[in-house]
């Protein structure tokens, strides 16, 4: 039996959270907001309130603690007169009977305007800097709406990041979602900052606006990005949503949605090309797992909820381009793979949703390869329509196909050599092996501040391929063999003779 609950009907507070509220959406509560003191149980970040009336799924909730503190929550489930609420700031200090709960009659929204740029907010979109609150042009629900696949424009504009193993092999295009799969201690932040610093669309003047969403990362990590953005002047074109390691964990569930709401406004209403960097998705997923566990849901793999795929998709799929809009949202989410395991549910489900992945490798990092990109399992699914004549260069597709095939064979030879010794290799396998070594040392490794043009990257590729016999260039068309392979070989020979 449910305990008998007292209901208190209060008059609305004289100062509502934001003065704009009345203009947001008509709501039943505006005439008489009801505060409930009928919390019947608290478990982890969840509250159960009983005796409620008219509560809606996904509704925004305010929670007033006896201390005067105000927290925010969201309705996770409503069953007759019982509402299950997820509290963003956690439930510590909440006392049954003392705490009041108010349902606000709307979903979670943030205010958006061009003034977002240059500002710093917390993980729920409240100003974190000292300046005045934003004067919003409009309020938007942070969950957004699904983009109609019919309305999408296919991403196909090449972004030059200046990093060879991205530009040459796993080309990024405007509107793509390309995550960095990393591990703790690997330089993913530096790589993401390098991309943000160097990314440009050839022939286009506009620079990217950056939306940065931090979930549970340390102050130091966040400061690294802020300093880098400041140094390059990107900070003025950036909006930051920070939920740091010591901020409430559950708040992280809102952060990427808040960030995307800002990004969608900037891209599709204000026509910016937006680069969204989200880090670290692993912390986000852990917050989600905490909620799921508190709800006693049947856990999926490694305790993560069965709907993790759908949940992540509702974030990642908000990137892209849409027809009739000048702007775009390019997403680089960063996640650290627990135990460097790519089959862990977080990287696994991410890889199933995003348009490729860049994987960092600990062993390459230890070999001082920078950035330590594990080229073989890395992938850009959208490269095919973003490269070639008029975009990068005609030989690009054949060149990366050949580089991949050659590197894979070189790695195979390397493995064989480890087991049986180099002497056991055929001459041709030895050539592939030295190719693989040179490829890692010169093509993959380039350092944090080297910004290579796409021509430099492609030329370097051919230079390395000439280490292999022409007959092995199986993935290259005849015309490009002559135009690129033969020419490069001849040029190198000449240089050698001159030297």
């Amino acid at each position, binding site marked *: 039996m449910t305990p008998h609950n007292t209901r208190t009907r209060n008059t609305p507070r004289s100062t509502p959270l934001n003065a704009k509220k009345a203009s947001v959406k008509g709501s039943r509560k505006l005439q008489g907001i009801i505060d409930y003191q009928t919390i019947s149980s608290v478990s982890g970040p969840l509250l159960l309130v009983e005796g409620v009336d008219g509560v809606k799924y996904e509704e925004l909730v305010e929670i007033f603690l006896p201390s005067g503190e105000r927290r925010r929550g969201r309705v996770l489930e409503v*069953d007759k007169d019982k509402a299950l609420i997820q509290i963003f700031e956690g439930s510590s200090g909440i006392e049954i009977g003392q705490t009041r709960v108010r349902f606000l009659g709307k979903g979670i929204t943030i205010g958006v305007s061009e003034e977002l740029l240059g500002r710093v907010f917390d993980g729920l979109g409240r100003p974190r800097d000292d300046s005045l609150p934003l004067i919003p042009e409009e309020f938007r629900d942070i969950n957004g709406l699904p983009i109609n696949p019919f309305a999408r424009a296919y991403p196909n504009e090449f972004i030059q990041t200046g990093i060879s193993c991205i530009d040459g092999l796993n080309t990024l295009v405007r509107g793509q979602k390309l995550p960095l799969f990393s591990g703790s201690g690997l330089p993913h932040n530096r790589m993401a900052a390098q991309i943000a610093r160097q990314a440009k669309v050839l022939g286009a003047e506009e620079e990217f606006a950056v939306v940065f969403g931090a979930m549970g990362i340390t102050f130091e990590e966040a400061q690294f990005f802020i300093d880098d953005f400041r140094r390059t002047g990107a900070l003025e074109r950036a909006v930051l949503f920070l939920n740091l390691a010591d901020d409430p964990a559950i708040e992280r569930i809102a952060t990427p949605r808040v960030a995307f709401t800002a990004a969608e406004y900037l891209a599709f209403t204000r026509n910016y090309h937006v680069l969204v960097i989200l880090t670290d998705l692993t912390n986000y997923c852990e917050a989600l797992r905490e909620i799921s566990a508190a709800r006693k849901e049947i856990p999926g*793999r490694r305790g993560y909820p069965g709907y993790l795929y759908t949940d992540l998709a509702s974030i990642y799929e908000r990137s892209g381009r849409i027809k009739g809009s000048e702007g775009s949202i390019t997403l680089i989410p960063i996640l650290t793979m627990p135990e460097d395991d790519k089959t862990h549910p977080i990287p696994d489900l991410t890889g199933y949703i995003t348009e490729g992945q860049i994987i960092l490798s600990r062993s390459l990092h230890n070999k001082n390869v920078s950035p330590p990109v594990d080229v073989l399992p890395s992938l850009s699914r959208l490269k095919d329509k973003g490269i070639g004549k008029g975009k990068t260069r005609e030989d690009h597709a054949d060149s990366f196909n050949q580089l991949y095939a050659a590197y894979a064979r070189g790695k195979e030879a390397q493995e064989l050599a480890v087991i049986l010794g180099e002497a056991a290799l055929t001459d041709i396998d030895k050539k592939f092996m030295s190719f693989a070594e040179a490829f890692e040392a010169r093509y993959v490794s380039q350092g944090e501040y080297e910004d290579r043009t796409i021509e430099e990257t492609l030329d370097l590729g051919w230079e390395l391929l000439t280490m292999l016999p022409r007959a092995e260039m199986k993935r290259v068309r005849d015309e490009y063999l002559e135009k690129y392979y033969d020419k490069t070989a001849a040029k190198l020979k000449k240089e050698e003779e001159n030297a």
Partner: protein
Amino acid sequence: MNRTEDIGRILKVSGPLVVAEGMGTSRMYDVVKVSEKRLVGEIIGIEGDKASIQVYEDTGGIGPGEPVYPTHEPLSVELGPGLVEAIYDGIQRPLSDIAAKTGSFITRGIEIPALPRDKKWNFVPQAKKGQKVTAGDILGTVAETALIEHRIMVPPGIEGEIVEIGKGSFTVEDTVAVIKTADGKKVNIIMMQRWPVRKPRPYKRKYAPHEILTTGQRIIDTFYPLGKGGTACVPGPFGSGKTVIQHQLAKWADAEVIVYVGCGERGNEMTDVLIEFPELKDPKSGEPMMKRTVLIANTSNMPVAAREASVYTGVTIAEYFRDMGYSVALMADSTSRWAEAMREISGRLEEMPGEEGYPAYLSARIAEFYERAGLVECIGSDDRRGALSVIGAVSPPGGDLSDPVVQATLRVVKVFWSLEDTLAYARHFPAISWLRSYSLYTDSVAESVREAIGDKFLADSKEAMRLLQEEDELKEIVRLIGLDALSPKERLIMEATRSIREDFLHQNAFHEIDTYASLQKQAKMLSAVLKYYREAQKALDAGASLDDLLNLKVREKIVRARYMREADREKIAEIEEEIVSEIASLKKEVSQ
């Protein structure tokens, strides 16, 4: 409109699941409209007057006390002219019209009919007044697109005499014929039928597939063919090439109608199809591929419950074209998302979970779905046959094939294309494992292959497979002892199989020529690859050096055969002559 006593009240909202009371007049699988927003839902459980409803739209902002309006109709699709070239969501709402109405983002509670109501189609009668007809008989045709003649059939359940038949321009709701049934009732026939998606459409008889469904993909047609009316699955980890294979089949399979279901996957992949298919030309007719394609897109950002419905929507549309006597192929990418949607709803219903949290009825649902494929004798009196081939992608967590969805699928489908990440990493595409995959149609379709291109190809294919198996054993030896342990003959095998893998099985979907190879071209390519092996083997026996044989110039030509246009495919045979003559000149050198 509903009588007030029919209207239910919401009790509970938990994600896509809504529970309502006062639903006594509704039945299982009825469609209901939830709240004043009229969100589309389907009843998936009934207890007393309480109904559990899976809602096909986002339920944010909905709460207890709000109304639920019954429709007393099961979830159905509209079938008739206007399907081809359309793109629908999981419950057959046209996404193009939605975009026109609400802009780039999908809002809730949109009601737009699946088939355009105002469009007129030219109906050409085939049946005559006075003719006795039964369900499935063709009354007339509409040239829906340059590739599809839409056959207007007597709907299931109707039989009688045509008392009137029209000719000329009609909408899908206009009466094109009147049939008088045995009990004297006159039934108006319109060009549109409605059919509940969860109920298979009837046919007379099923047959085992015996004709190859060529796909233009070498490893598939040569080693692991699919039969028309057959079933196949493509499981693999992310990035291993499931979607590209599905797209390749949608482009190049020699089916007459393609139904492509994007179930819970990426939005851009559907956009890709929408942009590419109208540009791509069908190799036979020269017409754009889109003119034979129906798209269902319920991408991963769209409501999860509609994912569950999308595969049924797709297969029902596919069956409808099968009923016209067409060979239809349906691709579902990915069936795992469908299964996960089932799991999510089942979890919220608090059903007893089976393996990995999937409901106990998972395998039954998967089996029922694939069972809707088949080569059938259609209903109607003309004995025509139609085929529905179904190819499902499966996305197991971590690529682990012990996943319940993979296992349940393997128990019912007859072709298994096993994707391997190591092949994908080396960009060996399609990353279909030549050793682990299988097709149970190889023998049954052999006769149709023989008819198309003769015996040699079948023999060559067997020989190539034997060599690949031998290579696997030899590789093991090399791994343990090194290449030195192999005799020159064995090393030649290793070279031959490298050539089979790299020059024949590898196929670049994004290369304008390589993307498709006719059976004829496949046969010539394989023949050239094996010719080299056989001739080199003889030469080796006669004392030629392995190195010389490996360095023959003609080998580069074998590599490039894939880039020869279909029009020039006869020239591939010339390579074989060059192989013979180059080896002959080697011999001369040796004897000198």
